């Protein structure tokens, strides 16, 4: 009998909501580079006597994300307390949601392993507060064996949406695709920056293996699932799951059975290690938080968020293909980021041809963004300017070389007109009188070359080409080659 092992993967994704203040107090959520315990107050430190007050913006973002995932939004939803002791949890309970989550029963479509669209069902989306961060002095950064431990509550109370999928993914690639699709979506919605490195999008994976009879397809055995944590990049998600599939498969082939446990992905070593087994897991003693009244989601609130939904990324991709005739690879890059997609469209609207605009955005704009570590929506060159520039190239008023120079000048802060002037070009190209002047000057500056042509040593036309090159250099490439040729011929004709 030929046994086949089929991975069954479900993901829990924590998304940090893009609110200015924390979910239950007015502390800032922006702690990048902040001193530890700077963005804290009595409420998020859980000091005795303090009370949480719901941040309505977090609720609105949660509703928006729920709608975009095609979930049903609950019109009355409540917070529960999840009770457990840990130093990063100042109240010794996390305010979260339990059996009455904000949103339930949605779906998202990814490209499956067979290349066809595949639906991944969304179980639920719920709101909760983040915990603080522990820093241990032990060499491996873990609590065990640490001489001293420090806790930073800056992150404590930051609003999160936890998005739980059904176990609908069958490969690490699909898992990665799902996370990427979800990340793009939350960015489109303005719900989160989705930055995995900063921890504003965190992924936990539940993975188990089904052992199936290769011939009949009968299920022979279904192993317990393990929960894999600490995957901090898309690559890590893919690698950790691939490792975990191998680990479970080998275990099962040797007659073992995977345990239900939580495992920690060690990115450096490329392995998962056991953290704690679920059997011994905490009893969280969930109960409704009596400090927070039920959140009522009215029709009007839901409608408002529905109206705030942008064109979904997958819809945009379809449209870009049809409307602009762009190749699939271009569409994928442009649609990945909403500001970038908008930028591209604005370039086209300013007169650029779609294909050339796409090239410019994907090459030049990306280059400058990467060099300066700029987000697309803070890009220094206005889309209108780039669009007009590209249109000039389209119309052959400008060579690509000069256009790049103009673009760099604009990226340095110049306006389109200034940049064109600085590059020695005016919109509309070079007048023929001016070009003739330049050609005469070039010829006058190279009497030896002129002599050689005069003496008939330019049978192959190399000398003429050399002069043409000098003219092109002088005109910064914006002169038309044929025109240069014609004028040069007539000037030389006069002199010979």
């Amino acid at each position: 009998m030929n046994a086949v092992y089929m991975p069954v993967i479900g993901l829990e994704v924590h998304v940090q909501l893009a609110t200015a203040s924390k979910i239950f107090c007015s502390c800032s959520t922006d702690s990048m580079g902040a001193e530890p315990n700077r963005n804290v107050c009595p409420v998020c430190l859980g000091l005795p006597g303090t009370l949480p007050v719901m941040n309505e913006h977090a609720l609105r973002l949660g509703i928006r994300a729920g709608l975009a995932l095609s979930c049903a939004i609950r019109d009355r939803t409540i917070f529960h307390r999840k009770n457990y002791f840990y130093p990063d949890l100042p109240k010794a309970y996390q305010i979260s949601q339990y059996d009455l989550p904000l949103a339930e029963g949605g779906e998202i479509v990814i490209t499956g392993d067979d290349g066809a669209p595949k639906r991944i069902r969304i179980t639920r989306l719920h709101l909760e507060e983040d915990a603080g961060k522990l820093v241990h002095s032990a060499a491996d950064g873990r609590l065990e064996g640490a001489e001293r431990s420090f806790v930073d509550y800056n992150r404590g109370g930051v609003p999160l949406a936890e998005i739980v999928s059904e176990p609908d993914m069958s490969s690490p690639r699909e898992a990665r695709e799902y996370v990427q699709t979800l990340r793009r979506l939350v960015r489109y919605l303005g719900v989160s920056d989705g930055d995995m490195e900063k921890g504003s999008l965190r992924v936990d994976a539940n993975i188990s293996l089904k052992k199936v009879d290769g011939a009949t397809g009968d299920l022979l055995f279904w192993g317990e699932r393990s929960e894999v944590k600490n995957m901090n990049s898309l690559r890590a998600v893919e690698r950790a799951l691939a490792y975990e599939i191998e680990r479970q498969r080998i275990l099962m082939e040797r007659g073992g059975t995977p345990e239900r446990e939580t495992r920690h992905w060690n990115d450096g070593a490329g392995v998962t290690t056991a953290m704690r087994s679920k059997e011994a897991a905490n009893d969280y003693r969930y109960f409704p938080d009596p400090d927070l009244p039920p959140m009522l989601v009215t029709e009007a609130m839901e409608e408002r968020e529905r109206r705030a939904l942008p064109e979904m990324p997958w819809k945009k991709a379809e449209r870009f293909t049809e409307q602009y005739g762009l190749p699939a690879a271009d569409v994928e890059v442009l649609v990945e980021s909403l500001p970038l997609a908008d930028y591209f469209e604005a370039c086209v609207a300013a007169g650029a041809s779609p294909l050339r605009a796409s090239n410019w955005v994907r090459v030049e704009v990306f280059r400058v963004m990467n060099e300066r570590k700029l987000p697309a929506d803070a890009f220094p060159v206005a889309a209108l300017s780039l669009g007009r520039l590209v249109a000039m190239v389209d119309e052959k008023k400008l060579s690509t070389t000069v256009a790049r120079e103009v673009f760099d000048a604009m990226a340095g802060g110049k306006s389109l007109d200034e940049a064109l002037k600085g590059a020695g070009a005016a919109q509309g190209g070079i007048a023929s009188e001016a070009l003739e002047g330049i050609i005469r000057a070039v010829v006058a500056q190279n009497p030896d070359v002129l002599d050689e042509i005069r003496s008939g040593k330019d049978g192959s036309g190399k000398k003429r080409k050399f002069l043409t090159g000098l003219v092109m250099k002088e005109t910064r490439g914006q002169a038309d080659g044929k025109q240069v040729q014609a004028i040069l011929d007539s000037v030389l004709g006069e002199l010979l």
Partner: protein
Amino acid sequence: MDRMLSADEIVRGLLAKEFSAAEVFRSSLERVRRMDPALSAMLSVTEEAGMAAARAVDECVARGEDPGPLAGVPVVLKDNMCYRAAPTTCGSRMLERWTPPYDAAVVTALEGAGAVILGKTNMDEFAMGGSTEYSAFGPASNPWDPDRVPGGSSGGSAVAVAAGYVPVALGSDTGGSIRQPASYCGVYGMKPTYGLVSRRGLVAFASSLDQIGPFARTAADLARMLSVIAAPDPGDGTSSRRARPEYGAAVASASLKGRKIAVVRELAGMKASLSPDVEGTLARVLDLCRREGAEIVEVSLPRSLEFGLPCYYILAPAEASSNLARFDGVRYGFSRKERTLKALYERTRGEGFGPEVKRRILTGTYVLSSGYYDAYYLTAQKVRQLMKEEFRKAFASCDLIALPTAPTPAFRKGELVDDPIQMYLADIFTLPVNLAGLPALSLNGGFTADARPLPVGVQLIAPQWGEEGLLSAAAVLERHLGPASVAPMAAVKGGDGR
């Protein structure tokens, strides 16, 4: 008996420049110095901050400005309300040296009204208990008989008003913690409707039941205090946004004519556990109501009286087990530094909490545990809903419900401290009111015939937001019963004290 000024009289005298706020404050301090060694009602006295506040009021009066509705009135706070000027111990070793970096909403309201805070009062640890015997800093004594308890958990605040340290005080009431000590000490104590007074800055015991309320010796003072503290607070998600009346008006126009006051049918079957003094006092007060033109009717509250107690002792500990989990020795308060995290938790909580708190944390943890949640917590929540419904129906046929505040007058120190169930039973008539979220007050209906007479309280319960009805009834009865008496110094001195 010693004649002490009411808050009303202090404000009037101050505005008439008969005396200064500083003089009133000094006289309060003096009384605390003389009596508190025997009564142990105070956990801290904020002399410096209080004197500064009193002087500020005097300057305000001198400038001819309005010094506020509680101008120069000395008040005390139960020691579970955050106040920057003193530690907030909650009667626990866990917070013995913890001074909060903020003021409770009620403290801000009091200060804004010109009140002068005298200090913080003794209480059962984290408000769990009915005698103040569970205070980590020793029990307070009943000023009418120092061998007896003042009730609890807000015992210290009740004593401070009954012994005449101050005319008014604040307590908190989760299952009777204002009304029961008010009854034992012979003063007014009111538990407002849940959501009327902000809980911000009140260290939580059971968040869905806790409510801050006033103690006073006159109905007018009770109303005056309530008007100051009953403000909507956007910083408390459970604070109601509805507009609050000026409660003094209810006292000024007090009448019981045509009001329906209900007795509870099931009380007849509970006589065995009622002291005759309590029964007699209730009958006397009802008789006064009738003479004032009220109609006495009967309602039935079988579920509330039968299941209120078990329901409460599931829900309150459940919430408490979670609310008190933050005291883990990591950030503030009592801490036992240990080599491992588990040992830090265990020793800190093992040594920082007293026996009753531990009992309730254990109970609460148990009833929320997986496998027991449905049988205990969820069932109790359903019963709570039924009790709310039961009260709602009862109020369809009456304006107020009259019940004893407690089954007996103040018991002796040590009598129940090792019998938690009997101690819990002292709250059997008060707990249902918290579970239903309703307002109620306890007023002194008379005294026992003992050699050392003990006060006996009567409880009036109103529908949601019915505080004005309570105050109106109390004001009518006060015309017959007089304001609450200040316990005579002789009674205090005559006792063994502590």
